[in-house]
């Protein structure tokens, strides 16, 4: 399956993360921990499912008040952030 954007992080390294409902993330490989807000948590879960940007946008719009263009922008920015921190 191909993704619409090349800037997505490696899903395997995202799958190793321990996530809590309150937004606490623990990376067992590096020992680092993080806090995500609720939208970040939702996005991380969607990206872990290997969905592409279009699919993610649709799923976000089902849950949040958000324009497709804002969603696309924020998704790709957040994906970049995941890549920097978990690869």
């Amino acid at each position, binding site marked *: 399956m191909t993704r619409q954007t090349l800037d997505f992080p490696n899903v395997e390294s995202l799958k190793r993360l321990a996530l809590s409902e309150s937004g606490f*993330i623990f990376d067992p490989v590096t020992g*680092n*921990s*993080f*806090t*995500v*807000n*609720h*939208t*970040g948590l*939702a*996005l991380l879960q969607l990206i872990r499912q290997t969905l592409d940007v279009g699919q993610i946008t*649709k799923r*976000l*719009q*089902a*849950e*949040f*008040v*958000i324009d497709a263009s*804002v*969603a696309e922008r*924020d998704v790709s*920015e*957040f994906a*970049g*952030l*995941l890549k*920097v*921190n978990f690869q």
Partner: protein
Amino acid sequence: MNAPEKILKPWTKPSLSPHRVGVMNKFGAVRQHHHQDEVDGVAIEPLLEQYGSPLFILSEKTLRENARRLRRAFATRWPKVRHGWSYKTNYLNAVCSILHQEGSWAEVVSDFEYHKARALGVPGSRIIFNGPWKPSAILEQAAREGAQIHLDHLDEIYALEQVAKGLNKKVAVGIRLNFDTGYTESWSRFGFNLESGAAMDAAQRIASSEWLNLTGLHSHIGTFILDVRAYAAQARIMAEFMEKVEAETACQIEYLDVGGGFASRNALQGVYLPPDQLVPSFDQYAEAITGALLEATRARSAAGQPLPTLILETGRAMVDDAEILVTRVVGGKRLPDGRRAAILDAGVNLLFTAFWYNHEVKPLRPLDGIPEETVLYGPLCMNIDIVRSSVMLPPLNVGDALMVRPAGAYNNTQWMQFIQYRPAVVMVTQAGKVEVVRAAERLSAINDFERLPESLRVPFPQGLPE
């Protein structure tokens, strides 16, 4: 998949913040968590709508309060005190005029500043004229109008002597001194050095002149000086030199001018303690200066000789916190190293002091999301255009407005007209009214001074090349 009856949640920008365990918070105390949407009770957002962004906003109330606090701090500790407003710190006419109304003289360092003070109705006799270069025309005007001229170097003594002779008038002068206080780096390029004997030589030279009369001593030991002991040393050294010069020449020193340099409530780069914990109050500066002066003039007082007037040229500490810059976010990005960055519509073109201060940055509205390390860039195509290289802020969206403060000192004078128009400056008056004190620039502000030779005007005689 879509359930139409489902209530959708509001979207906030997703954020992710690493926990830095055991790492000291290098940003110092977090000052950014609050927001502020008004100046002296006047809402800022409507001002941005009306006058555009970016926008400088001046508080008349704060400026007057600062002037009164400074005067109170010194006048309660020394019999004769005067303040000269350092024009270079902020020479907006409104700022200068408020301070003149509060009793300040004008302290100028160029012909342009001298003209500006005169145009505001300040008589020459209430102008202190400093600086290393005073062109002959303005030197003559200053001598004629009775300005308080402070000589910087030997050639200037000769120049003023010629001017005085031409006017057939004996001119009172001060000399600028430089010396080592033991606490500050000596600004030895300005004035006459005390330790080397150059200052006493200058005093002797003036004493021997038919046309000049030494009546004052001036020095300015630096800027943003946090250690009040530097001022105590300065005051003591100047008072001792006064005694010496009066004893060795027949002059009578009427004033000691200690210059400016009091720190404002701003955060110097590289200093991690917040300004509230570091910056001395006017009372603390006053206590140090007048304490040293009282001590050094004990014999003089006992002998019934007059005490000199104490002159201050306080600049940044007077005006810095009386003005803010408001700017909007025009874009955001994620840097390759993971840091968040925002692009603002104001940069170092308007906030020259961003080169040495970490200004406080506050959103106008509470922003959702977890604060994270953010770089704030200006709009210029220059790598050095950085408003804050690291500040903790929640996620920013295009259009969000930020207040940058304090911004009253040196920005409205050192700002550059580089690729952008300079924006409006408005003042919230004591009565709560909003006045434009400098209109936003238009193209004519620059083009009116240019002259395009006939042969370069369109249509070009030969048409346009292919």
